[in-house]
């Protein structure tokens, strides 16, 4: 049984396609929607909640149709039995924490005792015990965020939708909450859809990630697949630190393929072959710049893809350093975890060798 099934969902705002024939299925765990702002991820989430009416397509939750434009079905949001955590928290300013969390329970005509028990246990769960009589304005950002979560969790929904729930928190708190949120959702054992534009957040929190752009789903896979095997240049560019160069497949050797990159002085790079590929295909070559190794003296023979270039500049970024290396007509920004001592000796403008492991290169055929 799929907890969520979306088929052929499209939504237009005048000329802008917010959703373009989106289809996917989702079973359980945490699924993140990742993409730049305006990619349609929030519209998708709101359509699932019933807050937006798509122009075409259908949505089923737990095999029950919730939205089907073709069949004229539109279950109102209040009957969908889902949770929703808004980016702005949307806490009702005129109600206490208790009032906010108890709101849905009261509407479900639960007994007063049960409401109280449920609210308290949920507040316990999110670590807000003892704050039930405060008003939202008397809480910190992180606490407000937990109230918003508790408000949804108290109703024990099958599915909870979270719309950039951490974007209003500061960096440190965000990282803490990320982990805590994941633990909490796993503990409660419900499925969650998580919208974010922060790939670190998406990768940390989710079991699977959907990358969206221009209202389309570009890739749906595990964080590992998305990161290491992007199927679309946009995914590669958006997810993590990657450099993209144009190339042409020269030949295929078993699991590997050889790609010629004109920008790198016509060097041939070896990489793992994508599923469907043929010699002569034009392609994008995606290089994970965090995996690239640098050396002043060069690499032992047999090292994958050794290229020669010039170090133009370096930017020290705390734990990380960006090295700008000019290879052919392309500048490669290599991020390393420590300063390379050899390069420090030579300084800027020195000759530098670069090695890229074949597993750090993906080839995306563009034809």
């Amino acid at each position, binding site marked *: 049984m799929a907890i969520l099934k979306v088929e052929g969902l499209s939504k237009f705002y005048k000329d802008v396609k917010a959703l373009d024939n989106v289809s996917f299925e989702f079973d359980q765990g945490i699924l993140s929607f990742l993409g730049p702002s305006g990619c349609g991820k929030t519209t998708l989430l*709101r359509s699932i*909640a*019933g*807050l937006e*009416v798509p122009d075409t397509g259908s949505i089923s939750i737990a095999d029950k149709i919730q939205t089907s434009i073709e069949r004229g079905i539109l279950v*109102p*949001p*209040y*009957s*969908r*039995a*889902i*949770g*929703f955590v*808004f*980016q*702005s*928290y*949307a*806490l*009702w*300013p*005129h109600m206490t924490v208790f009032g906010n969390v108890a*709101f*849905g329970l009261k*509407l*479900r005509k639960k007994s007063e005792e049960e409401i109280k028990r449920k609210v308290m246990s949920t507040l316990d769960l999110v670590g807000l015990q003892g704050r039930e009589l405060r*008003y*939202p*304005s*008397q*809480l910190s*950002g992180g606490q*407000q965020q937990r109230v*918003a979560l508790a*408000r*949804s969790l108290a*109703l024990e929904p099958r599915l909870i*939708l979270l719309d950039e729930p951490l974007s*209003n928190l500061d960096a440190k708190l965000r990282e803490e909450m990320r982990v805590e949120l994941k633990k909490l959702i796993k503990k409660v054992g419900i499925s969650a859809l998580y919208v974010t534009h922060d790939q670190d957040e998406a990768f940390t929190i989710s079991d699977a990630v959907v990358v969206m752009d221009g209202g389309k789903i570009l890739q749906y896979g595990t964080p590992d697949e998305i990161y290491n095997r992007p199927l679309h240049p946009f995914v590669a560019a958006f997810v993590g630190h990657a450099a993209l160069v144009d190339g042409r497949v020269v030949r295929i050797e078993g699991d590997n393929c050889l790609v010629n990159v004109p920008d790198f002085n016509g060097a041939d790079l070896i990489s793992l072959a994508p599923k469907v590929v043929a010699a002569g295909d034009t392609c994008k070559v995606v290089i994970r710049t965090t995996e690239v190794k640098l050396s002043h003296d060069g690499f032992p023979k047999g090292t994958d893809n050794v290229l020669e270039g010039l170090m133009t500049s370096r930017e020290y970024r705390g734990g990380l350093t960006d090295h700008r290396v000019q290879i052919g007509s392309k500048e490669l920004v290599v991020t390393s975890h420590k300063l390379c001592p050899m390069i420090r000796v030579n300084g800027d403008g020195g000759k530098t060798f670069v090695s890229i492991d074949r597993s750090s290169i993906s080839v995306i055929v563009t034809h």
Partner: protein
Amino acid sequence: MPLIASALAGAAIMTPVLVVMWRSFTSGKLGFTVGLNLTNYLRVFGDKDILPMLSNSVVYAAGSALLGTVLGAFLAWIVARTNTPGKALVELLPLYPILMPPIMKNIAWILLLAPRSGILNGMLQHFFGIETLVFNAFTMAGMVWVFGLACVPLGYLFLLPVFLSFDPSLEESAYIAGSKPVNTMFKITFPLAIPAFTSALVLNFLRGLRSFETPVLQGTPGNIKVFVSRVYDSMALEFNTGLATAYSVVLVVLSVITLYFYIRATRFSERYATITGKGYRVKVIDIGPWKYLTFLAVFLYFLAGIVLPFIVLIVVSMIPYFDYDTFMQFPSNAVLTNYYTVMRHPSFVTGLYNSLILSVTIAIVTVLAGIVMAFTIYRTRAAGAKVFEFIGTLPLAFPPLVLSVGLLIIFIGTPLYNSLWALGIGLFVAYLPYAFRNASGSIVNIHKELDEAAWVHGARWRHVFFKITLPILKPSVGGALFYIFIEAIRNVDVAVLLTAPGKEYGPVTLFEYFRVGQWAEAAAGGVIYLIILIVAVSVAKFAFKMKFSL
């Protein structure tokens, strides 16, 4: 369904409007209605005098609406957002001028500003030897000043809730970007209040367009003719409702244009969400030494809005007759005869009592209906709901007499005729625009996600409406209730045709003195009326800590 409720309220409004509109296509006057034709409209559009009249009307209405609404908004900002000293007083002072009916302000200001007999010119001459007649009530400026003062309350009451529930992070981000408080006020705070401001502006503009007392009392002697006099002449001289309606249609067109701009200005309603779901505390801005100036501004408005005219009324109610010399002899020549007369007035007490109950009811019902209507427009997906923006405001385009003819026609022959229900419905139609415009202007300030959070957590529309929208709108609901109650308790124009013989409806008798021009008795009645209200408001405010949108 909010839509059905709005449709009902809309129908209640549209029915009298459609009835008089239908009348406008028949020729002949009262008692002779025959045929369906365009005679009235041909006359209206063939009337070559209406253009200068219209331009006078627009200058007058726009001038006073701007003056009043801007002043009201400014006062609201001072009260809600600044550290002006004397907080308790500053909160209270702008409320009192609301209590004074516009007609009282009119007469008091004529006495103050009349060129040759006016108190102010008299004082200038008496104390400073200035012989030039500086002030003149019978000019466009005089009209705009007096009606502008009458426009302040709406601006104040509409804007105050917006400023009171303002998410300070909206302003703080501007400070961080390097904007100083005053700059932030103009660039951030005021623009975000545009929906409420425009709503009040539109209301005041339409009130100005159709207002009759000021043009009659101040415009006619100054030879300033306004458009609405054509409507009244059609009624009073020709007894031709159809023609009056045809003339009113010009006002309808003007209000539709005004509303179009309002709808355009607020079309991206999400932009104006100043009440967000992020918990926050409203912050008071330290405006430095300016705070003494803002205090002065509040105090000056209090003076001009009520103290000065009130003093004039008190003196006029006690002196034998009014002229400058007699006025200045006060209090050595004070007598209380006028107070005996008023207190002896047969329906002073009973009428006030009747209208009290009705006004409270009407205030509650219209405010609720207004919010439901605004809710339908901005919070449901009902197609074409924007049409309610027009419908909800339409009655204001018709002078009261025209509108009440429509109501009269509807009720005739039904059991409702001559009942309190008819009067109630009439007042509902007359005041819904105020309630609606207030709600429409403030509902867009609530971030949509606050509603949506309720939807997804199982709330039906009625839950969203009663548990979320209404409580969050509480400050502006309070203001609207207060205003409509104060207005309804003194309504004469709409009430008069719908009052049953033998039934006393307070204001008709209370303000009769103004109508028949017995200013001294009117002043005495007005003083008693105002003292009751002022005491009531002060007690409510201090003893019960009641909040009139504060």
